[in-house]
């Protein structure tokens, strides 16, 4: 049975999680990709307020398809998280607690997760219709001019994910590497 999590996250929600655990995430999450991250880290540097409540927040690295008429949102699967690596430690420092995406993170991000007690989750790349089905409401809250790359506030129910980087410095992909490389 997957562990069910509700946003916003408290440190105590995240401490029991171990890399490789299956979870479901419910509550409010925010989408942001490269450009939105660039803008937000700039705001942080200038000491300005972010367009989303960052304390305990969960960011989903995703840019949805256009919303067809009568639907809540278009298909919305994860994008490659590594492109956000350079911005992430500052976001975690500011209070970000969870990230959802796909693929490996840098050592800096893994270290920030360990030090500040944040968690990086992966969802299935390419399972974008399934993810859209977990979205109960959606609205753009910042940077509408960015189209698919705008920041959306999504209310999700039981979004399936897997813990990749936990609060203890464990990384799911690294574990697989060690298991599989004979030389």
């Amino acid at each position, binding site marked *: 049975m997957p562990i069910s999590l509700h946003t916003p996250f408290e440190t105590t929600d995240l401490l029991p999680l171990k890399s*490789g655990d*299956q979870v479901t995430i419910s509550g409010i999450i925010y989408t942001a990709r490269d450009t939105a991250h660039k803008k937000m880290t700039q705001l942080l540097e200038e000491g300005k307020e972010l367009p989303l409540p960052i304390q305990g927040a969960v960011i989903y690295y*995703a*840019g*949805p*398809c*256009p*919303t*067809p008429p009568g*639907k809540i949102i*278009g*298909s*919305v*699967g994860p*994008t*490659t998280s*590594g492109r956000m690596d350079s911005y992430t430690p500052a976001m975690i420092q500011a209070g970000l607690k969870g990230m959802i995406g*796909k*693929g*490996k993170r840098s050592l800096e991000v893994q270290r920030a997760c360990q030090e500040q007690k944040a968690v990086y989750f*992966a969802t*299935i*790349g*390419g*399972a*974008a*219709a*399934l993810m*859209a*089905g977990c979205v109960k409401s959606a609205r753009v809250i910042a940077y509408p001019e960015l*189209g*698919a790359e705008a920041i959306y506030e999504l209310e999700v129910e039981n979004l*399936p994910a*897997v813990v990749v980087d936990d609060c203890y410095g464990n990384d*799911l*992909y690294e*574990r*697989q590497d060690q*298991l*599989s490389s004979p030389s």
Partner: protein
Amino acid sequence: MIKTIHCNEIIQAVADLCLQANLELPRDVQNAIEKAKNKEQCALAKEMLEQIQKNHSIAKEQSLPLCQDTGTAVVFLEIGQDVHIDGGLLYDAIQQGVAQGYQEHYLRKSIVSHPWLRTNTKNNTPAIIHSEIVAGDHLKITLAPKGGGAENMSSLKMLTPAAGVEGIKKFVIQTVKEAGPNPCPPIVVGVGIGGNFEKSALLAKKALLRPIGSRNPQEENARLEEELYQKINALGIGIQGFGGNTTALAVHVETYPCHIASMPVAVNINCHVARHKTVIL
């Protein structure tokens, strides 16, 4: 006998393909995923394959694209030499069909007009068109939307003949290993060997269109496919990089004669959303 096909018919056919290709996978890909699920030893990977299948059903029921990255529209044309195109230019009709399909069907537009100036063209054109003149009076159009994640992990190397088949294997394995979880495994691996620089890349891309489970008719090539398939799945990357014994659904090898001095090898990786759809006019 010359057969006349009107551009309007082509535009409509291409626009329809854009939607169909993005909503439903070819049967052979679906079967390969089912087979992988039944074989999978790792519980987490099995669960991921189930979620992938659930995604297929939701996409179909809800008419939502399988993946939000609805890709670059790659179009393969087989033009019978007894076909006459009426009402405009063939390539213009293809581009118009792609623009119409992506706009009308709420597919994501992922094409920018210049590699570093990066303004979105807002209708997913231009498509990338490959055409071939063949015998007959038909026009065969295949649309293969190709996502950025998997395309970015593809690679090409100009090996020298001294590297031999061992060098080829090493390069293919290394490319897949370095790609790790990024191309959304389980993947389909297209390998093009020989020809020249651009020919090898095209062979690799075309190899992705072959039905999964098919073998190259040439014995040595088929043997290489089997060996690469075993070796790649022994890497343990697994579904989404979470481990297990399914990393590749298939490895397809295509070869072509080449220059005495060269041995180009291209590896084109496709994700599990291995989309393509064909229509014959």
